[in-house]
């Protein structure tokens, strides 16, 4: 028995080595960095150990702005994209003709490059000396005034960012949900029909519980993905996100490492650990909530 155990660990060793070297060690390292005050990356020296890095980051207005932006982004895009994806998937699975075409169309954004899509969104929304952009054109048609979505007021920029994020994350969700819907056994619908169940009740009482594990998966990964948003903001507003008031937490970490104000790995580590804590907390809450509503 003892010998077998040893053999087992031996088989696991390669996996442990790689996981340790590339996943666990960096995590611990970031944690250590975040407590080293006044760390200098050139000389690899630091003055002392303490919580100053955290205090600095938490008092940095750029960081607070980034946290606010990230939270708004998460709270809007996750429910909206999941809800919309559910609606579209249900619609897709209830039509027969052209379903394949629509499925392809809805999946296109997933295989399109983020930056290319950002460029297209710029053209749609940006105000230039020559044109107000397609969206403003539409607004003008309906009697509204032009808004500068890219360099204008905060809410307009946030709207574009949320719109863009929802648009980018939807295809994957639609893909997952259409296959989840297709995997619900038709016999349950037949049983419900014989019992005279209304279609709304069938959806609420049968379809939703049956696909709840998939919805839950999408919500969790959606939260995590949205908290880690960065490239979307860059694609729309350029690399100087602090100036545009559109920075995200990951953007802040990146700026601290490499940006104009770069060279502060300790601050970056502290911010990363704070992000880690937030994501962990939210995921735990999700798990607790899901216990009641998800049926495996």
């Amino acid at each position, binding site marked *: 028995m003892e010998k077998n155990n040893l053999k087992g660990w031996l088989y696991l060793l390669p996996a442990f080595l790689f996981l340790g070297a590339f996943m666990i060690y960096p995590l611990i390292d970031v944690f250590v960095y975040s407590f080293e005050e006044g760390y200098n990356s050139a000389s690899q020296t630091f003055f002392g150990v303490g919580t100053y890095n955290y205090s600095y980051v938490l008092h940095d207005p750029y960081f607070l702005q980034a946290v606010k932006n990230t939270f708004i982004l998460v709270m809007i895009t996750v429910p909206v994209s999941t809800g919309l994806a559910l609606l579209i998937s249900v619609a897709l699975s209830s039509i027969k003709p052209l379903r394949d075409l629509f499925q392809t169309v809805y999946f296109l954004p997933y295989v399109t490059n983020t930056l290319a899509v950002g460029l297209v969104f710029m053209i749609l929304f940006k105000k230039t000396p020559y044109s107000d952009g397609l969206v403003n054109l539409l607004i003008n048609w309906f009697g509204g005034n032009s808004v500068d979505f890219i360099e204008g007021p905060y809410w307009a920029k946030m709207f574009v960012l949320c719109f863009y994020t929802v648009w980018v994350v939807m295809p994957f969700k639609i893909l997952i949900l259409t296959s989840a819907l297709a995997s619900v056994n038709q016999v349950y619908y*037949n049983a419900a029909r014989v*019992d005279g169940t*209304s279609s709304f009740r069938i959806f609420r009482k049968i379809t939703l519980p049956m696909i709840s594990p998939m919805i839950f998966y999408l919500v969790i990964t959606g939260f995590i993905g949205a908290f880690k948003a960065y490239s979307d903001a860059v694609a729309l507003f350029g690399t100087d996100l602090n100036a545009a008031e559109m920075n995200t937490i990951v953007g802040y970490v990146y700026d601290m490492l490499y940006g104009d104000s770069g060279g502060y790995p300790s601050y970056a580590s502290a911010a990363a650990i704070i992000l880690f804590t937030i994501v962990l907390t939210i995921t735990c809450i999700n798990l607790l909530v899901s216990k009641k509503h998800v049926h495996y």
Partner: protein
Amino acid sequence: MKIVLQHLTKKFPSRNRKVREEVVAVNDFDFEIPNGKLVGLLGPSGCGKSTTLNLICGLQKPTDGRIFFGEDDVTDLPPENRGVGLVFQNYALYPHLTVEKNIRFPLENLKGADKLSKEQMRDRVYEAARLVQIEELMDRKPSELSGGQQQRVAIARALVKMPRVLLLDEPLSNLDARLRLQTREEIRRIQKQTQITTVFVTHDQDEAMSISDLIVVMKDGIVQQIGKPQEVYDNPVNLFVAKFLGTPPINVFDGRVQDGRLYIGEDAILDTKGVPDQEVSVGIRPEGFLLQEDGPMHCRLSRLEVMGRDVSVVSASEYSQNPIIRAIINAENSIDLNAETIRFAVKPQKVFIFNKETEERILL
């Protein structure tokens, strides 16, 4: 509630687009199921029995023909307005709901004048649960139940809305042999107790014979014979029905009628006065053989299978259409195992002759 099926026909478009042939699943089904009876639809797989059930419950629309429940024409009604309870082959219990909620589900759909209060629902649910004896399982999820218990829950769910007609699709096929015997008695008991007209589908003739008031034997969408189980067994209208009913199955021989006698090979086994000379298929039930030393029929003896009360004599003959001939005789008979041939006499009422081409029964 009697069920009247008038010239019921269901055609499906062919899957193969090149061949524009339609598949006729049910062909001109014309029958009246009397009130309060338990009827078994019996046939090999693909014979249209499940389609017939779906037509009765309304999940599929007939291509032709009408369906009446009592005097009401329900052909164009959706399933929910027909008042049918359906038990699915795999039960289709909602996996995320407890047994109690599963049974209550149909009641919660009732609207308007039929709407029930919480207490009424509870009473009805427990009444149905009592009927199928699952009151102690009400808080469990379907995944925590055995197959037989799931079956009972499914029946309770079908009965709770007090349907006019109860339909069961292969109700016993997912149960093991012992549970199958028990459950079929249970279905019989519930049906007797509720007096609901019940139709069930099965491919197992034992099942159909044992509990049905009437059986309907189907083949390729066409009804072959309808009758009380024993009548159909004793008087099959054609070779298919004769072969389909009975375990062990009937023995079929190539034979001929000549000068008013039935021959298998050179053995004249029976007088058949009035039947014109022709080639025939001869069916002899296993219990239709009598061990007799000077009997008219001879076979090559292969082996004996002793099954307690009976002995099954396995033999062979070049005229048999099956590789073996099985005769069931009383265990008290002594048989010489070293003998090469064995001789039988036959019981005339257990011998059926069929036209060689049409396979229709030729009455003696």
